[in-house]
């Protein structure tokens, strides 16, 4: 096993997700806050993958469809997220273009890749160090919310730029798809169980020790 370290799960103990109290999992609910407790989140990999695939699928329309439409003096322009970013870049507003690029293009993609990687590691298909993966997991949980910035921009523009015939802005379906990407990746990261990464490592150590013992005898 894991050289002198006792796992809570090996004693049938589980830490509550909400209040962190360690109690026997047989009780079913945390005695302190009433939340359901599990040794490991049930069907964590399946849920993570399902939500992540849904997010990846929505990522395509979210960037192909316009997020908002500008009507300026009768002239209609459809704006996608990438288009908005490029117009900032061309007008020389580099910092803001980089912020939009990071928040709406890079972060969702990185999150989808990171979750794929975490799921592969948790099922033992690849073997990076769990400490490193723990940091990746922590980052995915922390970063996801910032992608929401584009949805807020759409809401703000739609609310403020209503100048009658002169100029008006309306939201478009791309915005819903993008909000879907952000919310689905957040749920996906929440359903991932980081303890599976260490379980995998322990299993491999145990297997390694067994083979060593087998060759010695």
């Amino acid at each position: 096993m894991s050289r002198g370290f006792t796992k809570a799960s090996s004693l049938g103990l589980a830490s509550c997700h909400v209040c962190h109290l360690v109690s026997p999992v047989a009780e079913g609910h945390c005695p302190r806050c009433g939340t359901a407790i599990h040794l490991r989140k049930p069907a964590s990999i399946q849920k993570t993958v399902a939500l992540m695939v849904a997010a990846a699928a929505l990522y395509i329309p979210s960037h192909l469809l316009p997020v908002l439409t500008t009507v300026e003096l009768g002239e209609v322009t459809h704006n996608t997220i990438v288009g908005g970013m490029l117009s900032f870049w061309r007008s020389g507003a580099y910092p803001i273009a980089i912020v939009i690029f990071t928040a709406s293009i890079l972060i969702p993609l990185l999150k989808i890749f990171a979750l794929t990687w975490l799921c592969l590691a948790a099922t033992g298909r690849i073997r990076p160090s769990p400490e490193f993966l723990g940091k990746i997991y922590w980052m995915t949980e922390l970063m996801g919310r910032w992608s929401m910035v584009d949805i807020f921009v759409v809401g703000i523009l739609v609310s403020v730029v209503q100048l009658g015939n002169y100029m008006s802005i309306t939201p478009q379906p791309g915005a819903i798809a993008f909000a879907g990407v952000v919310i689905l990746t957040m749920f996906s990261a929440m359903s991932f169980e980081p303890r599976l990464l260490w379980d995998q490592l322990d299993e491999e150590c145990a297997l390694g020790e067994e083979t060593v013992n087998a060759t010695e005898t």
Partner: protein
Amino acid sequence: MIRGFNRRWRALAAWPRPRGGTRYSACHFCDTLHEVETVAEGDAARCTRCGAVLYQNRRASLTRAAAFSLAALLAMVVMHSFPFLVMDAASLRRNLTLFGAAWSLSQEGMPELGLAVIVFTVIAPFVLAGGMLYVTMPLIFGRSMPHARMVAKWMYMSEPWNMAEVFLLGVLVSLLKIAKLADVEFGIGFWACGVVMVCMAAAVAGIDREELWDRLEVAET
């Protein structure tokens, strides 16, 4: 009187231990089991295997959490009373508020997005700051309000959905977008939202989750 004194003393003493023998703490990454030991104020207990923080004993935790959540709630009132952006264009003046943005989205046929804006920028921050105040304020006096456990649970569940700071960035990006079209300036609501963001972060970081629940348990017995 003695009883009241005891309660007060208990609340001011650092991080009380709930009764019922040895407590355990399990690491959230590697699930290694540790016996809970008292750590000095300002120190953190780390997992012996992977080094992740198990729990931290924050300085002046209860007073800080209560004070910052109260400040966040007051700033929230200001945030909702004043516009985030004021725009003057074509002899029209338009104000941006959170409810206004959500309302326009639902008027333009996207009520889902309007709802998302309200949930992430109004409801989640309110549940977080309000819940924190509801739980920590009475704990300063060694007491607890009815349903405090349920409130604390909801407070911690709303935490990842609080996006006040993301909205602030959104206002900044929008300002740069509109600046070419019209005269725009920040309203008081924008600065108040900044205060909400800082106070909320300070309130949540002010008290360790485990300490809050331990204190709640002690106050209720």
